[in-house]
């Protein structure tokens, strides 16, 4: 369908898991940036990394009129009722990053999300190359209930399986909590004299663990992360991290603006002939080679 700036100003409501998370905060900036270009006025409903608060916010969102809506759920399934109400009212709802509810249960306009399994696999693969397929590795998972974490863990395992000389030492979850990660890594470093590589389900945890490693003089561990936010790019550039993979916040949030404008202005349909029900928005693995370019693209809210 034809795309472009909307002639009349559109009102859109956005909500993501919680602005405490850098990834979400960057998404907000991207949505607002692209919204301005496309003449969309974005109203934000913060999920506060809290299922109840986000539900309250989405209830309030659903009691108002919007041209379109984009939501990343903090707790899967918790937002289904008010989202259904908006869909029934004919508002295009774009689902970001995490399922609001299983796709067959909720008729969202489109689901824009990266493939977590792919992200987990590709970074793990990069780590395997770095240690030449031999040695020991630790995975520090996100919260076990998080679908993203579950996907990344699956990707990790699918790759590790192919390297028989690599031993997985530990997969204790860090729950996205940097204080817990620091504690777990204290123990890992004491318990395991030789760790070749470590894969973290996000960069924040990776950087927190790096701090512990540096304090204990164990900077030889190859670190892989996920998200590729600017501080992680910096870490990749100066060698603290080996690799990370871009979870393209700007692409997802900016994409939601474009999908919404197309739906409202050009009447783009959902599914066949229009926007696919499920759009995979993967980003690349980031190493020293492409980190600079990645940083530039993020500054332009492109990825």
């Amino acid at each position: 369908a034809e795309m472009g700036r909307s002639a009349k100003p559109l009102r859109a409501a956005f909500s993501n898991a919680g602005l405490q998370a850098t990834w979400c905060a960057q998404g907000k900036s991207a949505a607002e940036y692209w919204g301005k270009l496309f003449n969309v006025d974005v109203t934000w409903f913060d999920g506060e990394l809290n299922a109840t608060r986000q539900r309250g916010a989405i209830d309030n969102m659903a009691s108002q009129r919007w041209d379109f809506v984009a939501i990343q759920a903090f707790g899967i399934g918790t937002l289904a009722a008010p989202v259904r109400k908006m869909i029934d009212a004919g508002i295009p709802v774009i689902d970001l990053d995490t399922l609001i509810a299983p796709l067959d249960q909720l008729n969202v306009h489109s689901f824009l999300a990266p493939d977590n399994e792919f992200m987990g696999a590709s970074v793990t693969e990069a780590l395997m190359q770095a240690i030449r397929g031999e040695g020991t590795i630790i995975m520090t998972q996100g919260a076990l209930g998080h679908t993203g974490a579950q996907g990344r863990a699956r990707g990790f395992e699918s790759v590790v399986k192919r390297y028989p000389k690599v031993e997985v030492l530990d997969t204790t979850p860090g729950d996205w909590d940097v204080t817990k990660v620091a504690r777990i890594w204290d123990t890992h470093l004491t318990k395991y004299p030789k760790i070749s590589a470590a894969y973290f389900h996000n960069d924040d945890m990776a950087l927190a663990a790096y701090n512990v490693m540096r304090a204990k003089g164990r900077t030889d561990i190859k670190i892989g992360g996920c998200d590729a936010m600017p501080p992680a790019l910096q870490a990749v550039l100066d060698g603290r991290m080996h690799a990370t993979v871009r979870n393209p916040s700007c692409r997802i949030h900016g994409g939601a603006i474009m999908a919404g404008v197309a739906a409202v202005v050009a009447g783009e349909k959902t599914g066949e002939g229009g926007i696919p029900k499920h759009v995979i928005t993967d980003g690349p693995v980031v190493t020293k080679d492409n980190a600079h370019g990645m940083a530039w693209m993020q500054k332009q809210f492109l990825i």
Partner: protein
Amino acid sequence: MSTPVTTVMPDRDPLWSRLRAQLRNLAPFATLIALVALFSSLSPSFATWGNLANILQQVSITAIIAVGLTFVILCAEIDLSVASVANATGILLAFLTVQDASVNIANLPLPGGLSIPLALAGCLMLGAVTAFGVTRIGIPSFIMTLAMLQIGNGIGALLVRGQIAYTVPDLVTTLGSGSIGPVPWIVVVASTVLLTGHLVLTYTRFGRYVYMVGGNREAAEHSGVGVRAIIGAAMLISAACSGLAGMLGVAYFGSAQQNQFDNYLLDAISAVVVGGTSLFGGQGGIGNTIIGLLVLGVLNNGLDHVRMDSFLKILIRGLVLLLALVINVYAQRLRSHARAAG
């Protein structure tokens, strides 16, 4: 014995002195009115029927938890485990219900609605442990329920194992997320619980004992009131209310998962104390809790209707809470002055 030289006199000015005596209750009410007026003037979408329904629905779960907590706080105890018990009960209910094939939990589905009484029994058991610890072992409720908070979280985690369960028995689904006409069932349930709590506290012997135990534990004991039984019962009521809230909450949110209810702890405590029930026991009641619930409900909801820096909202919520507390304290002081002068 001496001859009766005195006669029993009625109050001199019943209306005015009654009003003054109600100051403690009026202050939160005034806060509520002020907030409603403020948000109505700031946003056209706030003062609508649809949004009123929203607010009521949003405070329903907190309300059910807060009823139990009101009993506990009136006894001059505290229950920090309410949210955790709610969470564990909701998860237990889902654990005992047949789940969709996509859900990957080694659960124990039971036929029919059998999971409902079992989940309730589960939360009552947690309540009984708390009651035992507080009244028999003599652990202060603050730390006993702190431990129970972690135990509740542990049970929830162990059952749901990081997964999300979606299905609960139909009855619970209806009560948690259905409506009768325009009125959500959950609002009906919450109102019923609030009303029952009020009736019990105001019109039953047990309710009177709750106030007396909170007002002066030693005096209650010396009057032959079974203080430990009353406190234990309050703890059980609190667990039952939390359990009910947890079950309905799972239906309301459409899912059962770990840590889902975490912020209900602060919300419920805030509702009770903002409403003017004293943390030192013996003063307040469900009426106060209702006002407190509405103050917080309006505040949370209203801030979403106002265009405002998302990061500023958290601070503003804290400041309004503080303001409500300050007003409460001053109103109470005025009231006790009024009483001393009366």
